[in-house]
């Protein structure tokens, strides 16, 4: 019975691992549902915000806000949203690859990059890479509040206001469906309005109370925050989905491994019995 005991303990340890991965899969599945609800709940705000900003882009205000003016870029800011925990497949790695590709492109254009990271994974990665990290924000939990993000966004907006950076981008995973998460890098500042809705093309403007600058400041700051918040909740939904899929794959792999080992174990047992029998038979024949 050589090795039978070893095989048995190995099977047992794999079974324990499988139990853990299965539990993690189920936890991720239920968390994903909640994260998706949260993602949907915050969507109306982001959409309304978009329409209001699009309206504003089409009005003809006497005052042009700096967030709406394209200027020559020397330095760009990048907000990266990652997860706090691992074991979620290639989710973070894919995002970092995408972000890194963009950074490389900017470097080729002689643009410096400032990073604002959200999530411990991004911090670890870009620190090792030697990126210029100006702000770090992590452990926001599964249900982040918008006030958790104010700091991270404000650092970037202040730098933009002061003319230190001339463009701001956001990198996060977009939730397509449970199996697919798309890493994206999109421009936040200056605001790029889409020209789809041509309804109100004639010359008009809002009445601003108290003044155009104050109102636009408040609106655009909230607009950027809502985009980052939307990115964050979407990234959390992505994290849970990716973890669920990764843990399901791990459980399945553990299952096949157990099956294979069980086969080896049975064969070893069979061989030992056969050997013992033949020993007895040949012993009897010799007598």
């Amino acid at each position: 019975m050589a090795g039978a005991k070893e095989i048995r303990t190995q099977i047992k340890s794999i079974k324990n691992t499988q139990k853990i991965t299965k539990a993690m899969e189920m936890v991720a599945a239920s968390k994903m549902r909640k994260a998706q609800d949260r993602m949907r709940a915050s969507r109306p705000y982001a959409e309304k915000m978009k329409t209001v900003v699009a309206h504003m882009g089409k009005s003809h205000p006497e005052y042009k806000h700096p967030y709406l003016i394209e200027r020559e870029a020397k330095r760009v800011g990048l907000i990266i949203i990652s997860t706090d925990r691992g074991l979620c497949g290639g989710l973070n790695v894919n995002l970092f690859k995408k972000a890194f590709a963009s950074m490389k492109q900017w470097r080729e254009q002689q643009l410096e990059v400032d990073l604002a990271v959200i999530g411990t994974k991004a911090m670890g990665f870009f620190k090792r890479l030697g990126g210029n990290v100006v702000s770090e924000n992590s452990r926001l939990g599964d249900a982040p509040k918008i006030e958790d993000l104010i700091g991270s966004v404000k650092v970037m907006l202040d730098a933009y206001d002061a003319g230190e950076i001339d463009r701001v981008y956001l990198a996060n995973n977009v939730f397509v469906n449970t199996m697919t998460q798309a890493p994206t890098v999109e421009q936040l500042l200056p605001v790029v309005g889409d020209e789809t809705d041509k309804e109100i093309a004639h010359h008009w403007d809002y009445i601003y109370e108290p003044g155009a600058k104050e109102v636009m400041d408040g609106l655009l700051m909230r607009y950027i925050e809502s985009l980052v918040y939307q990115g964050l909740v979407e990234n959390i939904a992505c994290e849970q989905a990716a973890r669920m899929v990764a843990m399901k794959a791990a459980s399945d792999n553990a299952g096949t491994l157990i099956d294979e080992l069980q086969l080896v174990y049975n064969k070893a047992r069979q061989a030992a019995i056969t050997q013992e029998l033949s020993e007895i038979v040949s012993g009897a024949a010799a007598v």
Partner: protein
Amino acid sequence: MAMTIHVDIVSAEAEIFSGTANMVFAPAEMGEVGIAPRHTPLLTRLKPGEVRVQVEGQEEQYFYVSGGILEIQPHVVTVLADTALRAKDLDEAAALRVKERAERAIADKASDFDYAKAQAELAEASAQLHAIRRMRDKSRR
């Protein structure tokens, strides 16, 4: 039929109200405004207070907002309500906090840095091991 105006009240974390109304009142920064259908376009900040929505044949509905932005188009009123308490010093403090955390994380080479590095090395080593094992399996066959 009386004229109506579409009202949307949303906050960053949820949709609060969506529907048509005859009249809407909101606590704008320069004083409360009453909005009837075909109001001229207006954009203003809100201060903490009540948004009241009057729907014909129904009781008036009240919504508390702690601030936000109000947009008026002739047929649409949008209230973008804040959920967060906002003040300039609070925002500044939050910004400072994340900056400090970044500095600390970069300075703190011992904990996370070694962990991330070790993790990368481990991944590399296990990939190499995997490749070697596969090569050995092939040569054995």
